[in-house]
């Protein structure tokens, strides 16, 4: 379990002149549930497709579970990938999906797959095309998990699901994680879902990794500092300013204390919640400040 699940070094993917992913350097420990967040077009799907071995980098390297992605059939068997919109074969029944999975995957866990399908309440004789969005997602999850991979990758697994189906999907996924020894990477727009299920975070924006780390470490190292204007100009070493906002009299900073020390000497300091932290990085990458109440107080 000591091999990192993903190690990327200056990983870059360009489509013609268009950068999809730029200089991504990551070291994600095994056993984590990783949330990949960022706006559309930030490079989330590109990073996941590179990890799954569906596309090759333009430059830089990526290792998944210590080896190049999709290097051979043994490596393919170690990674389960569920693409966006949880694809299933519309013309095949649920039972046929399970048979196909068994044919194609050497380590297929048949009792596990059948028990899951029964628990979810899927009719084995039903064609996948006639399942609801939530049921399709559950089927795709079961197929990916029953091959007993060491890493499961999901591209926006819950984006198209209604709240009930979304919760059911996440419950099922968390049960898998508790039951089998598996790392997970999933991309999502829903920060509340990420906070609920993930313990490691990668924020992507404008094709670059903005910040990455264990969520508890990140939230313990990000603070909002408020003080009279002009008093927050010098910061202790190891403190990065992620955002600055001024009113006539007051300055508000969002800072990342990389050594984890709370910059209490500066001014009124309070922790920043996960959602605000993510939004601050996304705004910074876009080159825009967060919308504030400043306008009305001027």
């Amino acid at each position, binding site marked *: 379990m000591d091999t990192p699940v993903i190690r990327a070094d200056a990983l870059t993917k360009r489509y013609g002149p268009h950068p999809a992913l730029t200089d991504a350097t990551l070291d994600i420990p095994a056993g984590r*549930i990783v949330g990949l967040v960022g706006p559309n077009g930030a490079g989330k799907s590109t990073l996941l497709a590179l990890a799954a071995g569906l596309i090759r980098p333009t430059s830089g390297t990526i290792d998944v579970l210590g080896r190049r992605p999709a290097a051979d059939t043994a490596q393919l068997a170690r990674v389960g990938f569920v693409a966006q919109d949880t694809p299933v074969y519309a013309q095949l029944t649920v039972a046929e999906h399970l048979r196909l999975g068994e044919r194609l995957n050497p380590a297929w866990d048949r009792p596990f797959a059948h028990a899951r399908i029964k628990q979810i309440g899927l009719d084995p004789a039903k064609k996948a095309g006639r399942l609801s969005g939530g049921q399709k997602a559950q089927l795709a999850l079961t197929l990916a998990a029953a091959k007993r991979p060491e890493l499961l990758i999901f591209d926006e697994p819950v984006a198209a699901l209604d709240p009930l189906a979304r919760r059911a999907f996440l*419950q099922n*996924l*968390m*049960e898998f994680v508790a039951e089998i020894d598996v790392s997970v990477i999933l991309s999502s727009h829903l920060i509340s879902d990420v906070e*609920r*299920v993930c313990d490691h975070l990668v924020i992507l924006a404008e094709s670059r990794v903005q910040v990455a780390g264990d969520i*508890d470490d990140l939230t313990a190292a990000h603070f909002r500092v408020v003080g009279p204007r002009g008093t927050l100009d010098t910061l202790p070493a190891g403190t990065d300013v992620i955002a600055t906002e001024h009113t006539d009299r007051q300055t508000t900073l969002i800072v990342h204390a990389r050594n984890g020390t709370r910059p209490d000497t500066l001014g009124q300091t309070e922790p920043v919640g996960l959602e605000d932290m993510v939004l601050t990085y996304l705004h910074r990458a876009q080159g825009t400040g967060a919308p504030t109440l400043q306008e009305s107080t001027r």
Partner: protein
Amino acid sequence: MIDFHLEPRSGVAPYMQLVHQVQQALRLGMLAVGDQLPTVKQVVAKIAINPNTVLKAYRELERQGLVAPKPGRGTFVTATLAAGDLDAHAELKTELHRWITRARTAGLDDDAITALFATTIRKT
């Protein structure tokens, strides 16, 4: 058995929310010494939460001396936080009810009552 829930917008880390819920249940006598906490798998299946978060919460409760794991059987409550005996709670609650009614009659809204309580308890 205790039933966990998660409040995503509270700003409190998910594992701390679980810790607080166990502490609260112990204070109110809803959990007693010898009671079993739900297994990790039961919690994750119920509230769709990362299993590591549950483990972290249980480790924290263990560190506080409130629970202990029994290998192969689960995690059990080993101490209580109920202050005094629980019979006193009912009486205090009745008095508090009366006091809150008086405060409302005096024109205080709920925020003012909560603030008054919080500042007074800090000074007492």
